């Protein structure tokens, strides 16, 4: 079964590449298969593994349910947006966030797995920050949730460090030629959160309203905060 799954994955990927996409196996497979997993060899493989582990008493399937629910419905980029909005309105918090991001973010209740050692990096008029993990998929789960597929896939991981402007163009972001670009490769256990610049015309906005301008991509560096107009 393993070889068959590999072969299937390879050819779907090859077909996806041939039609001009870089998306992997499940992006071609996915939406058709949510209700029909028995026919998908990889779904069967995962189900078998879960069955074996459950029968041996090694995992609790209810714990799997809670993990999935946590990352699908409870932890996501709205956490990070609140951190950014607070940094925009509260200079003391911004200073704390710069100095000790783990503690400052933890004070808002965002702690835990893949957010144990946080660093916040602030965009300025001169410098744009971009986060990547070229070696795997390191990402600040506690403030951004699970990473999107593109963040974990070879095109982004290979190019962010050598051609960040080309990557940003694919997100619709063209930076001035003079803007310095700093790419942070998350090669250790530090997890990075980009604090984008506060949009103009928001001087009297509340923290809650400001948070709505802070997109996930802005906190990775593949976007900017939304403009107000």
């Amino acid at each position, binding site marked *: 079964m393993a070889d068959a799954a590999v072969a299937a994955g390879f050819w779907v990927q090859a077909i996806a590449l041939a039609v001009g996409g870089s998306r992997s196996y499940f992006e071609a497979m996915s939406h058709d298969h949510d209700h029909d997993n028995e026919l998908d060899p990889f779904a069967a493989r995962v189900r078998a593994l879960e069955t074996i582990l459950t029968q041996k008493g090694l995992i609790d399937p209810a714990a799997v349910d809670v993990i999935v629910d946590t990352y699908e419905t409870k932890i996501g980029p709205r956490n990070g947006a609140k951190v950014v909005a607070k940094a925009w309105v509260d200079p003391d918090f911004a200073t704390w966030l710069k100095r000790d991001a783990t503690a400052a973010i933890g004070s808002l209740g965002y702690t835990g797995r893949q957010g144990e050692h946080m660093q916040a990096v602030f965009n300025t008029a001169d410098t744009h920050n971009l986060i990547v993990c070229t070696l795997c998929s390191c990402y600040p789960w506690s403030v951004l949730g699970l990473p999107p597929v593109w963040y974990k896939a070879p095109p982004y991981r290979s190019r962010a460090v050598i051609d960040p402007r080309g990557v940003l163009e694919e997100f619709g972001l063209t930076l001035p030629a003079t803007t310095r670009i700093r790419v942070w490769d998350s*090669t250790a256990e530090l997890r990075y959160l980009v604090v984008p610049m506060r949009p103009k015309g928001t001087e009297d906005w509340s923290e809650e309203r400001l948070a709505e301008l802070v997109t996930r991509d802005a906190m990775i560096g593949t976007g900017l905060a939304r403009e107000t107009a």
Partner: protein
Amino acid sequence: MNGPQDLGGQMGFGPVAPEKDEPYFHAAWERRALGVTLTAGAMGAWNIDESRHARESLHPADYYASSYYQIWIKALEILLKRHGFVSDRDLAAGKAVDPAATPKRVLKADDVPAVLAKGGPCDRPVATPARFKAGDLVRTKNFHPTGHTRLPRYARGKQGLVEAVRDGFVFPDTNAHGRGENPQWVYTVVFDGAEIWGESADPTLTVSIDAWESYLEPA
């Protein structure tokens, strides 16, 4: 290892192609893959470095042909077999056939929120003072270990500036192989784009890595 995971600067993978309003999961089995991987990891038989190394040890053709959660599951099967929890006979049968090793613990549903909120900090005290300080010029080593390492190929043998001294952290190069945590100081080291990519580099680019102390020498 110079494996398929070490992607920085590789070419030919095509555009990033971000997906609008992307869902967290693209198939129901991906939900289970995430949860099973985390609950199995909670048994405490292996650490995050060993699991990363299992993923990057997949054959390159397999790694590149696999989706992210496929890589996770393939590596998880390897880890479960290595540590005696699952056998080839179990996998062939699709059900428990052979007895399993005894796990250190089994994560119960009620304990999940606390376990996730606690996370797994990997900062550790280091007995010796930090060798480098912010502002020091350093050069990364040019090495090619066959085991796990977190120094990417594109950043080997390059001169950079220590921007920050971080904490002491578990050393992945030994921890991945059951040879101990051996914590070392970690530094954020920043390189000019041209130091890494040569004459074609974007002149506005700097790239930083987080490097364990033994990856670095004075420049």
